[in-house]
């Protein structure tokens, strides 16, 4: 394999052409660097998140538990309780990041987050209904959230009757429908007692409490299926950076790309919100941060996934050590994610992308 830029003018500045005989591959240097930086960071954060707890656990013990070399008790605590929870958090973060990346790229609008398509409200409504319907005021099974989210999104798509220009019609209809669904939730809640309200509130803040292996397996299965598709959609979305006419000239079937990208965003966001609750801010911030890392010429699907995962892992770890009571991950992402995003944006003081 030799790296050569036979046509430097045609090679993107952040990539290298790798050739082996008649095969060639455009190797994205910068994105690879970013991934090479983010993956170890996430692994480090996972370790920290497992270490961080109210009871405390030294690093050596954590590592021995992870590797299975420690004493049985430690191994059990790490592998049976903490690792699944952190793993679920990371998967939720990745799903949110990708969903945000897809919707933002599609609309060419940084405010176009997947929660506009009604996934948050749908999931919340399902959970609220389950809590109101039960005698104890407890929130029902974990699968209710994803179900509600996807149902709401399907309703939005049906009401919109098509994505419209840049997906705008769908987003606006999504705002209308999700406001409506949110009102239904509010109405149910205003008739409920405070017990139910408290339980639903804890869910609605976005918490990973009690999320373990039973959720992890279906979540992982869904992601293994959806993430490759999203990566392929991202390739196509690169061409939407120009205007629609240009994309059409380059042979992109706009309607199909939009429909597929939106469907993927809905599915990913629906699953993520359903499992982790409406964790604020990750879907907005992860794609922006990923874009900063990978440069303006790419649609950072993988980068958004890694950034989202890192954000949630960091928030989960912080939430366990920061306060006397354990903070839900959604509180940490909003309180600290906001200033962090500002710092990243204002430090270099360059604007990328369109608002």
């Amino acid at each position: 394999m030799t790296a050569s830029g036979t046509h430097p003018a045609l090679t993107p500045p952040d990539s290298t052409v790798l050739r082996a005989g008649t095969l060639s591959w455009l190797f994205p240097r910068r994105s690879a660097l970013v991934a090479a930086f983010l993956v170890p960071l996430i692994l480090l954060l996972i370790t920290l998140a497992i270490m961080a707890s109210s009871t405390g656990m030294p690093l050596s013990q954590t590592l021995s538990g992870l590797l299975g070399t420690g004493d049985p008790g430690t191994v059990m605590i790490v592998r049976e309780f903490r690792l699944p929870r952190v793993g679920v958090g990371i998967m939720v973060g990745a799903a949110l990041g990708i969903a945000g990346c897809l919707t933002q790229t599609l609309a060419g609008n940084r405010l176009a987050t997947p929660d506009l398509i009604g996934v948050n409200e749908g999931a919340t409504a399902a959970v609220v209904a389950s809590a109101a319907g039960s005698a104890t005021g407890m929130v029902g099974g974990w699968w209710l959230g994803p179900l509600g989210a996807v149902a709401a999104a399907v309703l939005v798509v049906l009401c919109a009757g098509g994505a419209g220009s840049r997906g705008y019609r769908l987003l606006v209809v999504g705002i209308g429908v999700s406001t409506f669904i949110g009102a239904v939730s509010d109405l149910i809640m205003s008739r409920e007692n405070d017990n139910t309200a408290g339980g639903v509130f804890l869910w609605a803040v976005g918490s990973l409490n009690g999320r373990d292996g039973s959720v992890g397996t279906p979540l992982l299965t869904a992601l293994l299926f959806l993430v490759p598709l999203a990566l392929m959609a991202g390739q196509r979305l690169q061409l939407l950076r120009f205007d629609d006419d240009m994309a059409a000239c380059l042979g992109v079937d706009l309607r199909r790309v939009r429909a597929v990208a939106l469907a993927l965003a809905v599915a990913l966001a629906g699953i993520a919100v359903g499992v982790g609750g409406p964790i604020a801010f990750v879907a907005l911030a992860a794609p922006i941060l990923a874009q900063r890392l990978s440069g303006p010429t790419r649609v950072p699907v993988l980068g958004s996934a890694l950034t989202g995962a890192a954000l949630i892992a960091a928030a989960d770890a912080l939430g366990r050590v920061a306060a006397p009571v354990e903070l839900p991950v959604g509180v940490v992402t909003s309180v600290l994610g906001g200033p962090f995003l500002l710092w990243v944006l204002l430090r270099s003081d360059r604007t990328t992308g369109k608002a």
Partner: protein
Amino acid sequence: MSITKGDRLEAERVRPRSRSPFRSRTAVWAAAGLVAVLLGFVLLSLLIGTGSSSAARAWDYLRGDPSARADAQLRLAVLEVRLPRTLAAVLVGVCLGTAGCLLQAATRNPLAETGLLGVNSGAAFAVVLGLTFFGATSSSALLLWALVGGMAASAVVLLFAASGRTAGSPLRLVLAGSALGATFHGMTSYVLLGTQSTYDTYRYWTIGSLAGVETSDLLPLLPVVAVGLLIALGCARPLSALGLGDDSARSLGHRPGRVRLLVAAAVSLLAGCAVAVAGPIAFLGLLAPYAARALAGARMAAQLVLSALIAADVMILADILARIVIRPWETPVSVLLAFVGGPLLVWIARSSRLSTAGAAA
């Protein structure tokens, strides 16, 4: 008229016949219709209530019937209960409609809503602080907390947006607002997690209602609203120029960054008052500008006026419904706003005229 419509349009483009912002007949008729509807709703709002005073008696009172005027209970119902609510609904509507329209134009982002500058989350955080640590419970105390908190939060957002080399760029404004809004929202959740008792009061505040608003609460807000509206009218022309892009606006002698920050300040004033009176209702500030764009096209002044009128109409309709849907109880107005406004927004978005108006990213 032997001139075809196309010719007339061509002539208008070359030589505008008047300097009026309402050059299109649609917008004028729409504004007239909206004003008529608003007056009708105001009358209805004074006649209909949850109490025992019937609409017929209230009508007698408004006509000046001596026996009705002498009825103390009727007087209380019409003047002390229904009139303040009606004024509040119109005030909140005008504020949110104008603010939403301004913000969407200034950020060139049709998804921007009035809560974007942190006004709503700042107000909510302040209300929670007031409830938890300062024992504020009365509605006027909460109103003050909300007003101060909303203003303080948006001031922080504006400071961020005004700093640095890209001061006043639309993206900077939007992201600073989103980021700080999220922070306040998180802090609100954090405080609420620790105190169950606060959460219940907060629940009812955040759901929004105009019940129990008093005229004395509204009066101090009027000058603030007036300042906001004046800035809005003054900004109509620069904002139209901004719609052409920053470079064109500069060549026309405007300063885009400065205009944006001034507009954002006006938005904070207007949205802050609305949040203080009716709780964090973000949705109306998104809906009204959409509808206004569908009616008025690209003319900024017409958009502003129509947006204010539409929002006032929708708000007062929602408040009237809030009184009668499940009599004798009140329904939260934000819930009815969603029931009225949600489908309305869907309908507008599906109408073909908006396919162009919505795509200004």
